[in-house]
């Protein structure tokens, strides 16, 4: 109170004194006179307890800072307000603090505790801003505090805070490089972060702190590639540049074979394909692929196969060429230039040409890079030649660069157009530009023999130009050109000799003199005369001209001493007393060399040889030649000098380092790699649609609205890295999917309600089978609040109940399936808030991996295998299920129907063929695993040794129990082993490598859903009870766990036996013996038709699977599957349906 009143007094007083402007005019000029006083004023305001006054004061102070005025003496007054409640005052105080803390370290410490408090704030924004300011305060003493704060923030829940932590790392590093090791740990941790928000910032930190630690990238490489498209623009630039360097160390040069081919040939081929680029991308791709294979075919040795990771990078960066951000486009362009196979580099040209429409600064940088690129890859830009035509309104530096590009692009076919264009430029008023054009013409003339004469004639015409600069430049260029073939052009030399009378530009005069001296034999009559004239004007010439006069004199003396002896003496005498010591030196030297005297040494004998040696013609080269050893797009490249902190772009390695370092624990990759190769060869699909699924979670937003196209793409989510990896992407997809689903969801909701009405809610005897179920049912009970994911589940149900379209259904199923799968994987990391996580999981799944499994194998592929099921076991099973009821014979698994699947074909396996089947035996070492019987047949001529499994790459949660190593498999022999796989109740494939002593094969086992369960015995009553329980666990909405399908049984399988057999073949279930069968006349009236019931449980989680088939007249039947795992249920219905109807 007192302070404020004091202030008021003060203010009143001051205004009385007549300086009212201080209160209103912040930091305008004219206040130097009372600097001291003014600051007093501000201090008063800061001390007041009115926020508005403080704000006003802070604004004035910040305005001072912005103008670069010193406000450091206010530090104590300002820092007091760091804890101010008003958020704007606080912000401005932060701004001030960051600016002056370095100068006032002790006082700055006062503020630290505020930030430490802020770091614990529940609001992520406040935590982030506290960290931001804390780390920006450049006070060495707080380094430990910063370190602690960064470490803590790196594991913050909010990605925004983690991003801030990443930003803080380089700040701390620049403050105290000692902390490097600790910081690298934090970087390593943040690199593993899966949010797009963090990725860019942490890579930036990586680049500043430890760019040499390329090993940290291995594990995150694929993730970064996949996230890239969703990272913010600035992060993209940093990541792409870093990945370029990474790829240079890890992959092989894709052009290594082509480098053997003739340079020109390669370019021609390339040019052709580039033209087509405009017409059709698809065709073009194919063509390019063909070309590539052709190219490799030519070079027979060591076929190059691109590492799939290398391909991944190229593929995932390509769409970014469409970015609006020039820096991103440039980053991708340089990546392609440095990493892509020659045939693919062309795609960047179009984008780069587009950038030329941008601001002139952008043009400037892009043209520099294009100039460098166009030397190595001329064909790439040839179609865009006209885009480099120069307008009179372009700034000079742009003109010169365009000229450079045009010159680089010139070849036999387009030179005439280019020269015509050059002719226009020569008339320009911008003389620097004209000079550059003349040089460009000279370069074209040297490079392209055909036009040399034309150019020369053109240049000679320029010699009569009125502008001296033009003439001079022409002379210099002509001189260079003439050096190539002087014999034919003595008339030009004569013409130029005449010019000495007029041209005043020293460089031009010197050039002419040099020419005459050099070729004095071609102009024997004129040369001495020129010397005579020059001798007259010697004293008035510029130094370089004088030197050339001496030079000319010496040469003439040697060739034609009779006529020029005296002249030479005269010139040398003049030079002897010249003011310039260079000229005096030269004169002395030459005199000794050429004039024979008694004392003259041995050298004078060779004088003629020395002076008139044949000089090689100059090579007119682009200044951009070999600039590409700098990473394109970099500052160093632009300056053609290494800038501080520039990381050298390494050369390709001779042999590729181990690619497995990039494997992440959770696999899915091996399969892809093989698949990818196939795809590359075929290339029958457009590039993008086929990568859609593969590039994984990050693209979910794209595919969200388009599940159909996604499932077509068929290649699964293998590339998505790991289940857990995709977690974060749900954030991305969430928003997108929400909209998409919301509307649909609402429609569906109506459906569901209808269903509700149809089906009476069963008596609630709530005994939920799992926690998850409870949650679901809760959600169901408040459907309005339920977000889209619960709706989509409902969709699923209503679909399967009412949908007629098979296709649609399968889509839904797959969606469901993946949802489920991810749910299981997601539940692993416990740190996250489970509910929210769950929600997200489901949602993004539905958008993503709809296609990561194949439908049940069609029977056509299936071949029966010998009955290898140990019969004893079957009897055991039988015994287990034996009850008072008569066991129908069909309960026994018809073992003869076991399907075998091919694991490795004889040809790909080089003689080793491997088949597998699901033996349906319990796997004794681990009851949660599915037993897979693997049969090796060695049809090769030599024996295979040490067959074993290696390097399993599994979905999270999946486990594998390898079979014992088979030491020797002689030729022609067959051997079977059993291995166990825990599929986690999903139909995801288990991928692993099958190794022999010589080779490794990537293989994968994908279980049909029916093999994921094992039979259990149950009585009919138990069955009914369980069925009811399952239904009731849903609360009001039934149908969640029950899927019913109507079907028409085929002629052949209308019998009971057939039905049972088909069902048990399709799924590993046991039949529930029932009294109400056909044979035993039913005492209970309701089911007038026979019901076949089957029971089983899933292998991993032990969830019940109940199947009942009601057969009616005329082969009509109804199939009902109850399973709490909906995905399994839906898939099972489909499989059984297929088994029964075919």
């Amino acid at each position, binding site marked *: 109170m007192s302070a404020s009143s004091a202030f008021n007094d003060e203010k009143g007083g001051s205004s009385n004194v007549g300086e009212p402007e201080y209160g209103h005019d*912040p930091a305008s000029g004219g206040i130097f006179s009372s600097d001291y006083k003014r600051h007093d004023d501000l201090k008063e305001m800061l001390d007041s307890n009115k926020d508005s006054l403080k*704000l006003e004061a802070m604004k004035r102070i*910040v*305005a001072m*800072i*912005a*103008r670069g005025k010193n406000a450091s003496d206010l530090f104590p007054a300002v820092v007091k307000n760091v804890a101010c409640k*008003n*958020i*704007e005052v606080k*912000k401005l105080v932060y*701004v001030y603090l960051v*600016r002056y803390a370095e100068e006032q370290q002790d006082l700055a410490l006062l503020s630290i505790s505020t930030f430490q408090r802020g770091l614990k704030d529940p609001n*992520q924004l406040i935590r982030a801003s506290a960290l*931001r300011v804390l780390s920006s305060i*450049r006070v060495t003493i707080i380094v430990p505090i910063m370190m602690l704060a960064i470490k803590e923030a790196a594991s913050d829940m909010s*990605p*925004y805070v983690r991003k*801030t932590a990443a*930003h803080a790392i380089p700040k701390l590093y620049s403050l105290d490089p000692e902390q490097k090791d600790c910081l690298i740990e934090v970087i390593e941790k943040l690199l593993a972060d899966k949010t797009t928000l963090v990725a860019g910032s942490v890579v930036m930190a990586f680049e500043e702190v430890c760019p040499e630690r390329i090993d940290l990238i291995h594990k995150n490489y694929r993730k970064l590639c996949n996230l890239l498209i*969703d990272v*913010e*623009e600035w992060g993209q630039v940093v990541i792409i540049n870093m990945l370029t360097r990474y790829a240079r160390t890890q992959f092989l040069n894709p052009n290594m074979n082509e480098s053997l081919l003739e340079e020109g040939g390669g370019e021609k081929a390339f040019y052709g394909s580039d033209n087509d680029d405009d017409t059709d991308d698809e065709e073009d791709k194919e063509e390019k692929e063909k070309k590539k294979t052709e190219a490799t075919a030519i070079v027979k040795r060591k076929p190059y196969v691109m590492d799939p990771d290398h391909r991944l990078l190229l593929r995932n960066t390509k769409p970014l060429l*469409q*970015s*609006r951000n*020039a*820096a991103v486009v*440039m980053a991708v362009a340089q990546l392609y230039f440095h990493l892509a196979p020659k045939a693919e580099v062309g795609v960047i040209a179009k984008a780069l040409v*587009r950038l030329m429409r941008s*601001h*002139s*600064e*952008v043009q400037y*940088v892009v043209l520099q890079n294009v100039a460098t690129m166009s030397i190595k890859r001329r064909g790439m830009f040839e*179609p865009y030649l*006209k*885009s480099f*035509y120069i*307008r009179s*309104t372009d*700034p000079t*530096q742009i003109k010169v660069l365009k000229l450079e590009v045009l010159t680089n692009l010139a070849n036999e076919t387009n030179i005439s157009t280019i020269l015509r*264009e050059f002719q226009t430029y020569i008339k320009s*008023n911008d003389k620097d530009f004209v000079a550059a054009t003349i040089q460009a013409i000279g370069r074209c003339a040297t490079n392209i023999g055909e036009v040399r004469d034309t150019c020369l004639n053109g240049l000679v015409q320029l010699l009569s130009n*009125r502008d001296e600069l033009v003439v001079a430049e022409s002379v210099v260029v002509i001189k260079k050109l003439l050096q190539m073939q002087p014999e034919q052009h003595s008339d030009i030399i004569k013409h130029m000799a005449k010019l000495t009378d007029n041209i005043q530009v020293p460089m031009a005069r010197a050039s002419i003199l040099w020419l005459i001296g050099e070729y004095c034999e071609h102009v024997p009559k004129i040369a001495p005369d020129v010397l005579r004239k020059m001798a007259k004007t010697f004293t008035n010439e510029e130094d370089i001209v004088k030197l050339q006069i001496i030079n000319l004199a010496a040469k003439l003396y040697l060739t034609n001493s009779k006529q020029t002896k005296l002249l030479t003496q005269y010139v040398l005498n003049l030079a002897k007393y010249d003011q310039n010591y260079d000229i005096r030196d030269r004169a002395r030297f030459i005199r000794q060399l050429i004039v024979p005297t008694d004392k003259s040494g041995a050298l004078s004998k060779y004088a003629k040889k020395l002076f008139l040696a044949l000089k090689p013609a100059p090579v007119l080269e682009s200044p951009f030649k070999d600039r590409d050893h700098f990473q394109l797009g970099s*500052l160093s490249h*632009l300056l053609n000098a290494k*800038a*501080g*902190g*520039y990381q050298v772009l390494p050369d390709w390695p001779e042999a590729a380092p181990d690619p497995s370092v990039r494997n992440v624990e959770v696999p899915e990759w091996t399969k892809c790699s093989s698949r990818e190769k196939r795809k590359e060869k075929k290339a029958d699909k457009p590039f*993008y649609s086929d990568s859609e699924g593969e590039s994984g979670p990050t*693209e979910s*937003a*794209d595919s969200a*609205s388009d599940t159909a196209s996604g499932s077509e793409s068929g290649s699964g989510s293998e590339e998505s890295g790991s289940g857990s990896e995709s977690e974060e992407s749900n954030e991305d997809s969430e928003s997108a999917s*929400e*909209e998409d689903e919301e*509307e649909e969801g609402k429609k569906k909701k109506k459906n569901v309600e209808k269903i509700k009405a149809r089906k009476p809610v069963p008596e609630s005897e709530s005994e939920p089978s799992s926690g998850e179920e409870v949650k679901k049912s809760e959600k169901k009970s408040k459907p309005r609040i339920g977000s889209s994911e619960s709706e989509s589940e409902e969709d699923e149900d209503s679909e399967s109940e009412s949908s007629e379209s098979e296709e649609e259904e399968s889509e839904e199923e797959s969606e469901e399936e993946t949802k489920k799968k991810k749910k299981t994987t997601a539940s692993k990391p416990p740190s996250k808030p489970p509910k929210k996580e769950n929600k997200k999981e489901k949602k993004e799944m539905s958008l993503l991996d709809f296609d990561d499994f194949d439908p049940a194998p069609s029977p056509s592929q299936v071949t029966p295998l010998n009955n290898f099921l140990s019969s004893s076991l079957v009897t055991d099973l039988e015994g287990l299920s034996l009850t008072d009821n008569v066991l129908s014979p069909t309960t026994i698994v018809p073992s003869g129907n076991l399907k075998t699947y091919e694991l490795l074909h004889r040809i790909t396996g080089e003689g080793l063929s491997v088949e597998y089947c699901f033996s349906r035996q319990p796997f004794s070492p681990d009851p949660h695993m599915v037993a897979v019987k693997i049969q090796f047949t060695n049809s090769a001529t030599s024996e295979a040794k040490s067959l074993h499994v290696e390097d399993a790459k599994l979905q999270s949660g999946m486990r594998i129990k390898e079979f014992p190593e088979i030491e020797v498999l002689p030729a022609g022999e067959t051997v079977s082993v059993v291995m166990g796989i825990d599929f986690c109740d999903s139909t995801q494939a288990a991928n692993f490598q099958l190794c022999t002593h010589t080779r490794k094969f990537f293989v994968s086992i994908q279980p049909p859903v029916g093999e994921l369960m094992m039979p259990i015995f149950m009585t009919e009553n138990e069955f009914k009870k369980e069925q009811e329980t399952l239904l009731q666990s849903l609360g009001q909405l039934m149908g969640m766990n029950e899927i019913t399908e109507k079907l028409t049984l085929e002629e052949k399988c209308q019998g009971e036996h057939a039905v049972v057999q088909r069902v048990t073949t399709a799924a590993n279930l046991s039949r529930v013996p029932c009294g109400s069968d056909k044979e035993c006349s039913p005492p209970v009236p309701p089911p007038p038709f026979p019901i076949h019931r089957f029971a089983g449980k899933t292998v991993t989680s032990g969830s019940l699977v109940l199947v009942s088939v009601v057969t009616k007249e005329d082969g009509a039947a109804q199939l009902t599957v109850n399973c709490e795992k909906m995905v399994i249920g839906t898939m099972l219905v489909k499989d059984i349906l297929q088994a029964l109807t075919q």
Partner: protein
Amino acid sequence: MINSLFLINPSGEIFLEKHWKSVVSRSVCDYFLEAKEKALEPEDVPPVIHTPHHYLISIYRDKLFFLSVIQTEVPPLFVIEFLHRVAEMIQDYFGECSETVVKDHMVMVYELLEEMLDNGFPLATESNVLKEMIRPPTILRSVVNTLTGTSNVGDTLPTGQPSTIPWRRAGVRYTNNEAYFDVVEEIDAILDQSGTTVFAEIQGVVEACVKLSGMPDLTLSFMNPRLLDDVSFHPCVRYKLWESERVLSFIPPDGNFTLMTYHVNAQNLVAIPVYVKQSISFFECGSDGRLDVTVGPKQTMGKTVEGVMVTVHLPKTILSINLTATQGSYTYDNGTKLLVWDIGKLNPQKLPNLRGSLSLQAGAPKPEENPSLNIDLNIQQLAISGLKVNRLDMFGEKYKPFKGVKYITKAGKFQVRT
């Protein structure tokens, strides 16, 4: 990355400085000012200057130099692009980007810069995110602010930042939901003396003004997407869907933004809407010259060509001109030797003509080159490439938005050599 930023006016005065790392003395700008002195035009200042300890990267925009100081390797385009974003941000916030505007809102600009970069690395560059953190000034708000002392700084968490669609803020509400798209095509061309086309291409841009509530998901499709040769998108556009189906699917930012830019397939011949008959000649002997320019419609697809303007940079040796225009008016600045002839609407019946005499400075030689003519024009309701928007669908929201598409053709860098 970016160490400091200086804003410099054309006369070389540094009127704002901002440092993100240690303070760099403003004397570093001397290198730049030196280069600026050397350059004839502001555009000729090299964008990248190498000084002993720093690198200076600058842009010239809206008559202001934005100069950034760099200490270590960084992609130059990264910095240039960022500087342009700064200029765009100022433009977006205050309606224009000029020295006065920056000086008037010094503190706010400074705060914005503080938010845009952290330690020299871009943090928040999306205008929607920034606007949530620091509210743009409006007249009403500035009045209220002065009265109540409240602030422009948002005290809520900017929701856009942590989300993955940073370009859109949450909770947008409009009473009138509308979405407008302007398809603007520019013809870049060089014509030679005889009127033949040396080079011509069409560059297009789709500018959008979307004011829709909630989180609309829009899909824009074209009748003839095959025309589009090379495209670049706002980050909101889903690349994959474009690649597979040639539709633009996106959740739009709120307000005005550039949805896409495109280049029309070069194989299609470009229709040049006007022709220019010109003759500029100087007499060898006397200090005299003649100028005669006629503009007429050529391929206009039945539309009227409007806003025609001819700009000529006359040679430096011209002393004075004496011209008469049959339509429109011309202005001539003897200092810059810039002749601007504003024709307006093109009437096919009566072709506009500008003719008269030019007088050279006494004794000056006949100019080497005739000046080239830069043509400006626009044609309403026509996309010269023939591109047509097919339909716009909205998902995710229930209301019916009002939709509109407008086509304009303009001259881009349209130059006639003489």
